[in-house]
C-alpha cells in the first residue's frame, strides 16, 4: 500500500478533504495552523469543490458558524487547539444539544497561564461533559482514519452528535509519518454524502434551539442515550472500514494484555513510546501491557473493564491535571473497575504537562513504581514530572 509522509495536521486536513466537508470555518492557533493552511491552499487551488473555506474572527465564531451551517444540512469540519477550544466551550454544548454532527480536529496544547505551546490533554478533556463524541488518536494514520470514522459515527441516525478527533500538538501535528491516504472512491464507499433528515431546508421550516420548560431533562437524556448508541456504531462500522481500507480499530487499544499483571493506561502519542518501553521490559521478564484509551466519550465501560479485569496493578498515566484532585482519567478508571468481583490496585501518575517528554525511561520508572505499589499493597497518586526541574 502506497505510503505518503504527512504531518498530523495534514492528516486531519486530508480527512476533511476526503470526507467532502462542505463548510470549513476556521481561526488560526498554534499548533493547529498547518491544518487550516493546508485546507486554505487546497481551497485556493480549486481542489475542494463543493466546500466553502471561511475565515472567522474568533474560535467562538468558528463554532457558531459551524452550528449555522450544520443546521442547514452542511457537512462541517474545523480544527482548533488550547485557548481556542476553551473559547468555543459555550457553543460546544449548543452544537451537541442541537444534535449537529460537526467534526473537529483538536490539536492538544497546554492551557495558560503560564503560556505553553506544547502538548498536554487538559484542553481536550475540559470538553468531557459537553455532549460531544471524543476520540484520541495515537498516530497520524489514526488521525485520518478517525476523521473519516467520526463523520460516519456522528451522522448515524442513532447518534447525531458532533465529534472531536484529538491529536497531540507537535508530537503528531508537526511530525511527518508515513501513512496511507485512501482514494476518494474508497472514502465515498465508506462515507456516503450527508443526507440529513431533520435540518432546515427549503419548504421545511424548522426551529432550532428554542427554549423548553419541563422537557429539558428529556433532551439531555436523549443526548446521553445518543452518545451511548455510538459505542455499537463504532464497533459495527469496523468490518466495512477493514474491507475497504485494510485497517481495523476497537473501542480500546489493547497491547500485550493477555498475560499482563501490570497494565499502563495511556492516551495519545505517548502510547507509542510506552509500547516500545513495554517490549524492552518484556525482554526483562516483566509482565506488563498497555491499554490505550481512544474513545473517551462515550465511555466504553465494558471494553475498559474487560481489558483490565485480570490485571494485578494498573498505572493510569494522565497527561493532564485537575488541580486539587489529580489526573482526570484516574478516577474514571477506578470507577469503571469498582463493581468488579476482584479489583486490581490502581495508581495514578500525572505526567508530561506542557509537552514535558515522556521517554521510555520514564515509562519504565512508572512501571517499577507500580511494581512497588503492588508489593506494598498500597496505590499512589503522584506527580511524576518534577524531578530535575
Amino acid at each position, binding site marked *: 500500500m502506497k505510503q505518503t509522509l504527512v504531518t498530523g495536521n495534514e492528516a486531519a486536513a486530508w480527512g476533511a478533504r476526503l470526507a467532502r466537508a462542505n463548510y470549513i470555518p476556521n481561526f488560526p492557533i498554534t499548533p493547529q495552523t498547518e491544518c487550516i493552511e493546508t485546507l486554505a491552499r487546497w481551497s485556493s487551488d480549486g481542489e475542494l469543490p463543493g466546500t466553502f473555506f471561511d475565515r472567522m*474572527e474568533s474560535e467562538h465564531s468558528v463554532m*457558531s458558524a459551524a452550528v*449555522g451551517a450544520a443546521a442547514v444540512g452542511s457537512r462541517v469540519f474545523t480544527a482548533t487547539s488550547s485557548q481556542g477550544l476553551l473559547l468555543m466551550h459555550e*457553543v460546544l454544548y*449548543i452544537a451537541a444539544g442541537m444534535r449537529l454532527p460537526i467534526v473537529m480536529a483538536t490539536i492538544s496544547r497546554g492551557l495558560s497561564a503560564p503560556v505553553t505551546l506544547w502538548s498536554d490533554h487538559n484542553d481536550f478533556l475540559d470538553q468531557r461533559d459537553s455532549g460531544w463524541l471524543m476520540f484520541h488518536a495515537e498516530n497520524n494514520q489514526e488521525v485520518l482514519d478517525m476523521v473519516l470514522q467520526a463523520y460516519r459515527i456522528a451522522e448515524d441516525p442513532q447518534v447525531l452528535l458532533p465529534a472531536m478527533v484529538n491529536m497531540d500538538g507537535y508530537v503528531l501535528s508537526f511530525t511527518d509519518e508515513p501513512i496511507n491516504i485512501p482514494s476518494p472512491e474508497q472514502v465515498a464507499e465508506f462515507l456516503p454524502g450527508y443526507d440529513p433528515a431533520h435540518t432546515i431546508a*427549503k419548504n421545511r421550516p*424548522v426551529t432550532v434551539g428554542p427554549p423548553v420548560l419541563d422537557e429539558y431533562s428529556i433532551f439531555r437524556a436523549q443526548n446521553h442515550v445518543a452518545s451511548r448508541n455510538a459505542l455499537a456504531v463504532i464497533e459495527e462500522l469496523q468490518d466495512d472500514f477493514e474491507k475497504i481500507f485494510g485497517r481495523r480499530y476497537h473501542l480500546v487499544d489493547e497491547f500485550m494484555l493477555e498475560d499482563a499483571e501490570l497494565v499502563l493506561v495511556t492516551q495519545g502519542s505517548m502510547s507509542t513510546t510506552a509500547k516500545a518501553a513495554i517490549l524492552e521490559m518484556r525482554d526483562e521478564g516483566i509482565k506488563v501491557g498497555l491499554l490505550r484509551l481512544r474513545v473517551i466519550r462515550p465511555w466504553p465501560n465494558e471494553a475498559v473493564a474487560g481489558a483490565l479485569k485480570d490485571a494485578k496493578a494498573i498505572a493510569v498515566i494522565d497527561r493532564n491535571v485537575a488541580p486539587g484532585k489529580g489526573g482526570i482519567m484516574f478516577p474514571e478508571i477506578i470507577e469503571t473497575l469498582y463493581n468488579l468481583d476482584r479489583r486490581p490496585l490502581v495508581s495514578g501518575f500525572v505526567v508530561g504537562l506542557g509537552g514535558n517528554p515522556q521517554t521510555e525511561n520514564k515509562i519504565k520508572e512508572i512501571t517499577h513504581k507500580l511494581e512497588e505499589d503492588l508489593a506494598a499493597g498500597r496505590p499512589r497518586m503522584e506527580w511524576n514530572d518534577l524531578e530535575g526541574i
Partner: protein
Amino acid sequence: MQEFKSLKDIPEQDYFTGGSSACAGCGPSLGLKLALKVLGPETIIINSAGCMTLLPLYPNTPLKASWIHNAIENAASTAAGARHGLDVLGNGDMNVVVYAGDGATYDIGFASLSAAAAKNERIIYICYNNQSYGNTGFQWSTATPYGSETKTTPRGKENPTGNTAVNKDMLKIMGAHRVYAATASLAYPVDFLNKLGRAKERDGFSYIELLGACTAGWNYDPRLTIKISKLAVRCGMWPLYEIEHGMLNLNKDFSELKPVDEFLKMQGRYRALPPDGVERLQALINEHWAELKEYNKQRYV
C-alpha cells in the same frame, strides 16, 4: 423589488401568527411581524439570546419561517455559517436574517457582527434596539441613551442622572464597514419595509436598526408603542437615515425638531431626570441632528 408607497401596499399575509409569549405592545415583536411580510417563509431568522428568544417555546412557535437561536454573542457568525451552508448546497435563494437585540449587537456580539460586515456576507442584520438588556429586566447596554434609568444605572443621591454614558453611534460604525446601514421605526412601516426590501435584493451585508419600543422597560402604557416610536423620530432621538457607500441619506427631514421633553415625559425610565440632564440630552440630540443635516447627501464615513 416594487417599493411600497403607502400602508395599503403592505401585504396582509402574516408569517408571525398569534400565540407568542411577548408583552402586549412589544415593539420588537411587531418589527419581526412586519419584516416577515417582506421576507416571506423561505427565511431563516437567526436570533441572539434576548426577549425574542421566547417567541418559540417548545413545542410551539408563532413563526412560519425557520429559526435558529444559538447564544447571545454569535448571531452574525451563526448567520454566516447558515448563509454559506445554504449556498454551497444550492439553496442560495433562502434569506438569512439576524434578529438581535442591542446588547447582543452593540456589546457582546460586536466582534461577530463586525467580521460578518467586513466580509460583506449576504445577510440582513436587524437590530431591534430597546436600548437595554430587556429580557433580563432592563439593564444598561452601550445602546442605552444618556439620562435613562435602568436597573443597573438607577438614579440615586450620588447619581441623579441614571446612565451617564452616551450611547454608541452604531450607524456610523456600521457605515464605516462600507455596508448598507439604516435606521428604521415602527411608526414608519413603509420606510422600514422598503429598506428591508432593498436589503433583500443586495448582494451583501445590510444592517437595519429598528427602535424597538419596550413597554415594560421604558415603562409606558402598551397602547402608546407607535405614538412613542413616532415621537422618537420627530424629536430627533431616533432620526431615520441610511448610509450606503459611505454616503448619508436623511430619510425624514424636519425643519424643526420637537423638544425631547415630550418624548421623555411619556416614559417612566426618564421620570425624575433632573433639568440639567434633560438639557444635556437635548444638546446631544441637537448635535447629532446638526451633523446629519450637514452631511446629508454627502460622504459621512
